[in-house]
């Protein structure tokens, strides 16, 4: 509760984007109970670039689902910009995602047979942005990720790296409070991975975009400022990445 007080205190500096407090996520019950997350505490400040790391099954993906309000914790608190959103009903969580969160997935998850432009427009349609502004912002977002001139290409006509750029454009077009990336380079080769990571770091540095990224690769995590290491549903360590500021 001390943490809550700290958040609500007016003189505690800027409100952190994300605060997890004693968060647990338990699947099943009794004998077959699995604690995917076990009493997690961590904070992401606005403008941070955090890598969630750990072996598979350690809980990093579950954690990202909770952060993205796709899943609800079974215990604890999740303060999103100071508001406890852990147990909101389905509709409210959807609205939260719509207005504050952008997603980038390992498998790109673009709508196929749909142009890059229309893919990027999609979140704006749900936000009821008028058509003219919607187009303008989608064009801008695609330009930002270096896809100017590819607006009318469908995912089938784009390389993996370009598809992930479209996905990033879709995530940032709404100017979200945080972008959650789940293994964003998992399906890409080393060169493309590096390009995507450079894009994310530049968005983080130049636009002040807050990014929380799940990865199991140290090389990819090295692009972040801070790594949170998961093991068996708990945070094993949480530390700044050396040399992150130097790049």
């Amino acid at each position: 509760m001390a943490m809550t007080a700290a958040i609500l205190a007016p003189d505690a500096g800027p409100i952190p984007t994300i605060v997890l407090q004693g968060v647990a996520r338990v699947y099943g019950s009794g004998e077959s109970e699995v604690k995917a997350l076990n009493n997690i505490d961590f904070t992401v400040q606005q403008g941070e670039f955090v890598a969630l790391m750990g072996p598979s099954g350690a809980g990093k993906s579950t954690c990202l689902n909770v952060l993205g309000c796709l899943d609800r914790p079974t215990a604890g608190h999740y303060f999103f910009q100071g508001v406890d959103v852990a147990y909101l009903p389905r509709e409210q969580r959807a609205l939260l995602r719509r207005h504050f969160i952008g997603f980038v997935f390992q498998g790109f998850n673009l709508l196929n047979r749909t142009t890059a432009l229309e893919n990027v427009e999609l979140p704006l349609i749900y936000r009821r942005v008028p058509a003219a502004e919607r187009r303008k912002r989608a064009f801008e977002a695609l330009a930002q990720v270096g896809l100017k001139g590819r607006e009318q290409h469908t995912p089938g006509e784009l390389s993996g790296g370009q598809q992930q750029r479209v996905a990033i454009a879709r995530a940032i077009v709404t100017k979200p409070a945080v972008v959650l990336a789940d293994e964003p380079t998992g399906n890409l080769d080393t060169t493309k991975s590096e390009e995507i990571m450079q894009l994310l770091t530049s968005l983080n540095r130049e636009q002040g975009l807050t990014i929380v990224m799940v990865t199991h690769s140290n090389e990819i995590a090295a692009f972040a400022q801070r790594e949170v290491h998961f093991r068996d549903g708990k945070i094993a360590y949480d530390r700044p990445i050396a040399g992150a500021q130097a790049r």
Partner: protein
Amino acid sequence: MIWNTLLLAFRALRRNLMRSLLTMLGIVIGVAAVIAVVTMGTGASLSVTSQVSSLGDKLLFINPGSNQGGPQGGSAIRQFNQKDVQAVAREVSGIDAVSPSVSSSVTAVFGNNNWQTSVTGVTEEYFPVRNMAVVRGSVFNQLHYQSGRLVCIIGKTVREELFGAVDPVGSTIRIGIAACEVVGELESKGQSSFGNDQDNVILAPLRAVQSRLIGNEDITAISASVASWADNAEVKVRVEQLMRDRRNIGVQDADDFRVMDPTEIAGVLSNITGVLTLFLSAIAAVSLVVGGIGIMNIMLVSVTERTREIGIRLAIGALEKEVLAQFLVEAVILTTLGGVIGVALGLLASYAASQALSFPFIVSPSVVMFAFLFSALVGVVFGYVPARRAARLDPIEALRHE
């Protein structure tokens, strides 16, 4: 809200154009069938009534034979005679003219051509009463009626079969055993609503047919035209009474003759076509429902196939009701569009049929409206279950779906 939903739905349908078109097909066929059946049924019904009444709606047909139908058993049919004809003409009030006739089936021969047809012996009253005219030559004159010489007027079919395009007037054909000069050709009447060819006839003077071809003085049919001031049904009753008296039929006994009123027949026939149309429409409506189930089926499959897409939408922040609305609107767009195309195809088909079968082409706006609204309703009803399934997906599961 509605524009957003329409936008999302249209973009989704466009992505899978082929599937969208195939989904629509069931509804297109169902609606087209309903529209075609109803439109053709209405046309056929009208055509039957108008053809029957084209015989003349102030007309009675008097035929010997029982009203019960079926084979006449052992007893021969008691035919009419000339006295019966005179009695109908003189004693029944409300009758303008009486046309007695006798028919016999014959083979007509000209040169190398022969043709199976029937010859009808008629009097001069036949032409006005039956509303007949000639296109070539002339009708019979008094001399023809009285002389007993066999002359004839042939129908268009008989002319085509025996003479081809040649003018038959003045030629002599053989009817059965007798030679017969052709003096005219009848105006074509085409197919009757009962399906028989009204142009496959040979007309000849009554007395000549009786003496030269048949060999007795029987009259096998009487047509009587009813005066314009008289009522068909009342005159019919009077004719029946007269014939019962003349034929000594006891109070208990059934008539051994029939008096038919074409307007009555027209009524019965249009009733029959009406029932038939209703019946066929019901079958067609079943195909519409089947089309709707087809839509539900494809939508359900498509929800499974589009699980990932739905996951993306939900993750991006689509509400459950927005996904529901999108899928529902997709279904309604498909069925409504299918309805429009079906109406167009159905009307086109029935127009073609009406041209081919020379029916009138009558579009019933209420049926078109009904088909259109029904197909939209099919979309709502059969789109709901798949749409709800899509909306209730768990985004995490849906995104993991391969």
